[in-house]
């Protein structure tokens, strides 16, 4: 083990399917190499909730509700380099499909009209974060330093981006290493 201080990493899961985090775990044996270089702090993987001051913040998912917005703001404030992981964070992607409907109609459909729902009602508890009028990608809220496209990005793309960032370089996407699906 080198005495070099480890780079602190936090990840967050906003409005997305967690497929990007799954793809992250697809790094497989490379996770061991990564663990030698970085220290994972808050993340859905570690189940640590509070984001500390970190070097790299990785965000999956679009901004769909007030809580997503708050978490994204915290991440941006506490990380040096913010990485957008996957298409939801980059474009809104699947969660943004609801943007073509009015929010009230979306809620009505989801909680009341659904065929399997009986006497459903739209949640109104203060603990439940309010949905935003439209789903937006994270760069419309905060400055993003690096992007990893893909739905989800495959492990190779994630590995490439992380190793480039750890080496102090900006990932360069080409037709060989990038895709949107």
């Amino acid at each position, binding site marked *: 083990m080198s005495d070099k201080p480890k780079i602190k990493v936090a990840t967050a899961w906003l409005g997305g399917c967690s497929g990007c985090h799954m793809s992250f775990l697809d790094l497989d044996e490379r996770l061991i190499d990564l663990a030698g270089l970085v220290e994972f702090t808050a993340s859905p993987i570690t189940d640590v909730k509070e984001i500390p001051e970190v070097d790299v913040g990785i965000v999956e998912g679009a901004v769909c509700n007030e809580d997503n917005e708050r978490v994204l703001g915290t991440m941006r404030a506490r990380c040096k380099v913010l990485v*957008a992981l996957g*298409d939801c964070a*980059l*474009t*809104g*992607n*699947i969660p*943004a*499909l609801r*943007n*073509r*409907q009015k929010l009230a109609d979306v809620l009505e459909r989801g909680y009341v009209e659904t065929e399997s729902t009986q006497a459903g009602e739209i949640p109104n508890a203060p603990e439940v974060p309010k949905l935003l009028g*439209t789903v*937006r*990608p994270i*760069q*419309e809220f905060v400055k*993003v330093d690096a*992007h*990893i*496209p893909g*739905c989800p990005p495959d492990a190779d793309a994630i590995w490439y981006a992380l190793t480039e960032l750890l080496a102090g370089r900006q*990932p*360069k*996407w*080409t*037709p060989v290493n*990038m*895709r*949107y*699906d």
Partner: protein
Amino acid sequence: MIAGKEISLTIDGKPCKGALGQTILQVAGDNGIEIPTLCYLKNLSPWGGCRMCIVEVQGSPKVVPACSTPATDGSTVITNSERLQGLRRLTLELLFSERNHFCPICPMNKGDCDLQQQAYGFGIDSIRYPYLYPALLVDVSGKYFGLDHNRCILCTRCVRTCDEIEGVHTLDIGNRGVKNQIVVDLNVMFGASTTCTSCGACVAACPTGALFDKSAAFHGPLSRCQQVRTTCTECPVGCGLVVYTKDNRIVDVFGDAESTVSRGHLCRRGRYETWVEPRPRILRPMVRRDGHLVPTSWGDAVHTVKTLISASNHGQNAMLVSPRVTNETMRTLQKIGLRFDHIGMFVADKESALCTSPEFSTDAMKRLDDADGMILLGAQPSREQGVVAAKIRVAVRKRGVKLVILNSRRSDLDAYADISAPIVTLERKFWNRVGEVLGNVKRPVLIYGAAAMTAVGVTILDRLTKVLTSQCNGGEMLAPIQLPTSTNSLALAAGGVEPVEDISTWLGVQPVNFLYVVASDEPDGGARLLKEPHVRAFLEQIDCVVVQASYESALTDVARVVLPSAIWCEKNGSVTNFEGRALPLRAALAPSGEAREDNIVLETVFA
């Protein structure tokens, strides 16, 4: 300025030669310099709308679109500067922000989308503009294809294709500014269009997933399919096909741009009907036992056929073949012909007279491009030879060609015609009018179909010849174009197979007590043989019918033995189109079930 004069220019430091009248994009392409494009499509008029092909021309402060800017002698062009790359990237980012381009749920994902490929090329991992997320319609009301406005980049490739290739102008751009969108007719849903011919050329032209074939959507990327070039056997035009297959099934069918006959264009029949329409296949040989057709082995079926033939009365066995069969099958028929007392082909309505004097019309498709006057006599290309109809529409609309339609069934072409007379009179006034319309025509072409070969047709032809001789100043009548209805009827007729139209008379006169029908892949399974009620009664009475066909039909109901035929995309060999070109058929799929190609079946049965 003399078009065609050689010019010299420098593109990206490379000395390039071109011809006056060429665009910068054409000269660059001819000299091996690639400029990115989106709205440009070869064979369509340039649009200059997408701004991907912008270039710098020395001396001009503005960038110009290469696709629609003429190349000038002595100019210096730069196609790939940092400024240009920045602007092109900006263009792509704006396109992405404007609509809902979500790749993971698009049927053209994974390599079939020009927009996606361009964005990969520019390494676009995010865009700098807020997404507009407009709420746009996904119109899947059409039968064969859908139009998803969310993925449209308004390149107008579909609009120009519909206008300049199919000639119907169903599509256009509606509304203003950011609300611009593709409209169908006067803004109706695709399924409600009264002008769309469902030729699918717009789908083939679309660079994104905005227009997509319903049956191909989400069946895997075309870029990873196998491609087989073959020939459409739905009509005698013989358009080139590219069949995309995966795991021995068809994913999509497009026109073959390399085809000298059709140059990539198709009609609804070749593009969709052959593989989208559900048609019940015959997959195994069957013989009738106790009144029911039961599946059996090839060996047993062939043995049964042989027994039936040897039991049939000498001089009374007959064979009827579909005019769709290949030239190879025809040669097999010629070999085995002696085994049958009578061989005929069941041609289309009124087609037998045409087949009595089969004439191949050399270079007919090219002559249609060159003609300045067209006379359609007893033909209905809109229904039967869609790609010819497209040529006629484009000729009238784009070149101002005079069109006279005589003695043909009503169709959409009437709207394009100077004179359209489904029933022709012999009045002097009418023929004077025909003479006036064709008065200044120099290169008239007569296209005549099956319905021309009647007493009325011959009278009309006679009048027409007189009019053209007396009125067309110095014009010469080009060799007429004979337009048959059935795929290979001319070649079969030329090969000595007798055309039969009146089946019941033919059967009764012979008279027949054993009938072998090669229906091949007739879409109706050959059931049109039974159109006249007493044919069915006759066949039931002789109770000795063998049907070799691809699709189940009423005909199989009267069969003693049924043998499964391969269909168009499972065949090798050739067909001869109405121009006399022998066009290749190449199997894209292995035959379904136990089906075999017609000539192989015949060789097996009559070995």
